[in-house]
């Protein structure tokens, strides 16, 4: 267990420890810090100066103020499941870990809202209110362990955001510690449209660069009356992706519409939650509709019809909740499952207009062929959010660079067809350069201008989200050369 007292000559460590109440709430030995040198994005690593564990807003505010007064770079971290490196201390930051602020503070069923601390785990919210028939809609695949604070920072999505929207559509109010230590409350009392610029919307998805969220009021929803899930197997990818368009064009708004390709299916079937998908199919669709019971069957039969028309090999409706749960566990652990078929993977997160799906998939295929790396595809097909997973082995010299280049090339394809470089994972440090695929220098400056208002000294999570002028272009070039 942690040492009982802080023994170090570093006065900052001692002072930070005093703020959070001593040795049990601070880490500063290299061995302990090493566990914080990256998050879910493992390609870049950097040691933090220290990790502190505040227990309440006041402590967060004092820590922030101390860092700000002493010009120590700092950043906030939740469960560290982010996939773009947003919580990696690239400047040797003091990490303010919010995982001990994990209480569910208040649930107001009548007005459908709940207030949580940032370290509260996403799925625990639904679990805490499900007995009354309510749930929290945003469901990133990491919901078993990711924190709602992290979800706010990343504006996390999930399989069901096709119908219900992403995190920002479910946030009603925030308490935020600004980079100067000031504590503010926005979206007061969780009432929508409070007068003034929509800081709620601006801070959600700002990847922890504008402030540290310490309380969150979220909307909770009543469970849908009925839910049906369909699994469809296709012998070729384009039939699958055309079925996706057909379903949407039929005026159905599915709760989720997910797709996996052959390589992805190979991984999930080799991993911990296999379903028994046939190995020789090229694509599968997982489609869920929910809503009023009386209307569900009509939608299901429409979906089955669409699949038949697109030469589906086999299509079935989940028999019961346990079958449905197995299908979803299989899908939701898809990224981690890559470990079963490859030592390392790099997941991309491009979004494209749905109608361009077949074209984009074939271009990604080409990138895979050219780079010699396998690329698995798991994606939220309903909203065009692709997750190409570039499989590689970091132990083989040059492969990491190749994978990065292939990932970047996938994003270029997405940008080329009018899409974007990230739909839910965030830019972090991973896609800083790719921001240029979708924004001009002026547009990027318009954003950094806003950061300067909140975070004028850029001590809070610096080096994230935006390309740094000059240097990155060189790295980019090196990467491309390495890939050739």
């Amino acid at each position: 267990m942690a040492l009982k007292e802080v023994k170090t000559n570093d006065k900052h460590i001692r002072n930070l420890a005093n703020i959070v109440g001593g040795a049990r709430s601070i880490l500063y030995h290299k061995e302990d810090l090493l566990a914080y040198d990256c998050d879910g994005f493992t390609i870049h690593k950097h040691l933090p100066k220290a990790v502190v564990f505040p227990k309440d807003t006041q402590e967060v505010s004092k820590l922030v103020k101390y860092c700000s007064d002493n010009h120590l770079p700092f950043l906030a971290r939740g469960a560290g499941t982010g996939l773009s490196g947003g919580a990696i201390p690239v400047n040797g930051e003091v990490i303010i870990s919010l995982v001990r602020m994990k209480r569910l503070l208040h649930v107001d069923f009548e007005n459908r809202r709940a207030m949580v601390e940032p370290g509260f785990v996403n799925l625990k919210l639904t679990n805490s209110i499900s007995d009354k028939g309510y749930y929290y809609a945003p469901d990133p695949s990491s919901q078993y362990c990711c924190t709602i604070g992290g979800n706010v920072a990343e504006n996390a999505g999930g399989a069901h955001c096709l119908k219900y929207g992403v995190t920002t559509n479910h946030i009603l109010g925030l308490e935020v510690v600004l980079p100067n230590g000031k504590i503010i409350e926005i979206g007061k009392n969780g009432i929508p449209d409070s007068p003034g610029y929509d800081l709620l919307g601006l801070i959600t998805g700002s990847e922890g660069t504008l402030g540290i969220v310490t309380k969150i009021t979220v909307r909770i929803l009543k469970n849908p009356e009925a839910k049906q899930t369909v699994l469809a197997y296709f012998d070729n990818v384009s039939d699958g992706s055309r079925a996706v368009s057909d379903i949407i064009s039929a005026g159905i708004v599915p709760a989720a519409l997910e797709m996996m390709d052959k390589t992805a299916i190979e991984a999930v079937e080799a991993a911990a939650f296999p379903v028994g998908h046939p190995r020789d199919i090229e694509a599968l669709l997982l489609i869920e509709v929910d809503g009023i019971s009386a209307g569900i069957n009509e939608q299901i039969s429409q979906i089955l019809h669409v699949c038949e028309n697109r030469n589906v090999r086999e299509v079935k409706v989940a028999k019961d909740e346990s079958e449905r749960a197995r299908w979803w566990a299989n899908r939701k652990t898809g990224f981690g499952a890559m470990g079963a078929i490859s030592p390392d993977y790099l997941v991309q997160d491009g979004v494209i207009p749905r109608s361009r799906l077949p074209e984009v998939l074939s271009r990604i295929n080409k990138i895979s062929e050219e780079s010699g790396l396998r690329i698995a595809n798991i994606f939220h097909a309903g909203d065009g959010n692709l997750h190409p997973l570039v499989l590689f082995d970091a132990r083989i010299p040059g492969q990491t660079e190749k994978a990065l280049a292939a990932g970047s090339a996938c994003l270029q394809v997405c940008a080329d067809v009018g899409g974007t470089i990230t739909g839910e994972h965030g830019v972090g440090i991973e896609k800083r350069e790719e921001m240029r695929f979708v924004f001009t220098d002026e547009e990027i400056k318009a954003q950094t201008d806003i950061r300067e208002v909140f975070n004028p000294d850029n001590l809070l999570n610096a080096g994230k989200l935006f390309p740094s002028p000059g240097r990155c272009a060189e790295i980019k070039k090196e990467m491309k050369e390495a890939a050739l």
Partner: protein
Amino acid sequence: MSITESDVKERPACTTTSLSNYRWSDPPDENKWADCVHCGMCLESCPTYELTGQEQHSPRGRVHLIKSVAEGKLQVNEQFMDPVFACLDCRACTTACPADVDVGGLIEEARGQIRQAMPLTGYKKAVSKLFLESLFPHQQRMNALGRLLKFYQKSGMQKVVRKSGLLKVMPDHLADMERILPDIKEPVRKKYKGEKVINAKGETKHEVALLTGCVMDVMFSDINEATINVLTRNGNDVVIPETQTCCGALHVHAGEREMGRNLAKQNIEAFKDAEKIIVNAAGCGCMMKEYAELFREEPEWQAKAQDFSAKVEDISKYLHDTGYEKPQAEMKTRITYHDACHLAHGQGVREEPRNLLLDIPGVKMVHMPDAERCCGSAGIYNLTNPEMAGEVLKSKMKNVPEEVEMISMGNPGCMLQMAMGVQKYGRNQKVVHTVQLLDWAYQKEDELRGERDGIKRSQNK
């Protein structure tokens, strides 16, 4: 030789053995951590992460540290030891992991390195030596300890100690343990000594060998007795091989892998004629199913170990697979079930014991939230890390439903720990082994039948 970080940087970022700071044989297996992509799905499953919120105390954090030593970024030292030894070895992360990373295996291998690099000293060494080397592997000594404890209880000394206030000056966790010492009975190995086979009641369908376990047979010989009763009642001849010994789980958990290997070899030999090896202690069963892990550097033994492991089965799973007679007598009790880590996460046995309990008429099962959460026993973890174990137990006890009369489970370590929880938090549940409940139901049925037959007989007269 020591490798500094600057050396590392100049070399390519791939792992070659030359960088590794693991200096001993049987180091953590690179293929195990290669599966880990650092996704974090394991975090919430880990009791020590839940309590500390610190990632070096999480599965992926530990894997990251273990890997970092191999990459030469860390030394095997005190700071590295802390998170590696704070792991409860509950395997919940293995269940949660989408890529099936064998975190438990890595931890044990790392502990092996630590123990060799930094042998225990002083008090800790003495305690470890006492339990692991001098006690558990030696059945006579265990029995002697049992007799001593029995004497302690029967002689009235326990009462004296409890009144004396001696408990107040003992370390808290030892005092807690004293309070829940089970009633010591005669070990089955002693009782059936010399009996080659304990015959099935009725027609013999199978022959099985029983691992009596070291602690089990001393502290919980009644559970062994119940296991034998249940097995024989369901058509099994039971053999208790004389030369069997402690399974070695505690040694392996503690990093004493060489000792573990010796015990494993002895058991592999002892049970070589058995077709099926029945275990009623989840920890032992799990270890014995993983013997092959110990022999990565001894292929000959590894093959033997694999054959051996294939024969090992938990009692509840065995009964479930081979069929058992459903008891007729009504037990009328409300119970809850706790998943022993090494049964649920270690062996994937979850539904079998529950079904077995539900097959007893009158048993009402109340769901325990987070039933798969570790109780904090974790072998001798509650002796070595009493503070963390206490916290884990505290959150476990919160989930024990108020209204139940019994808590059933399939592991003696858990039973001791849960009994301590019941005592400590003023609860009143009886802690039982799944097989005991079944045995009691059979006994009650027999009694009733006896009475009925008696009545009939008297009526006939």
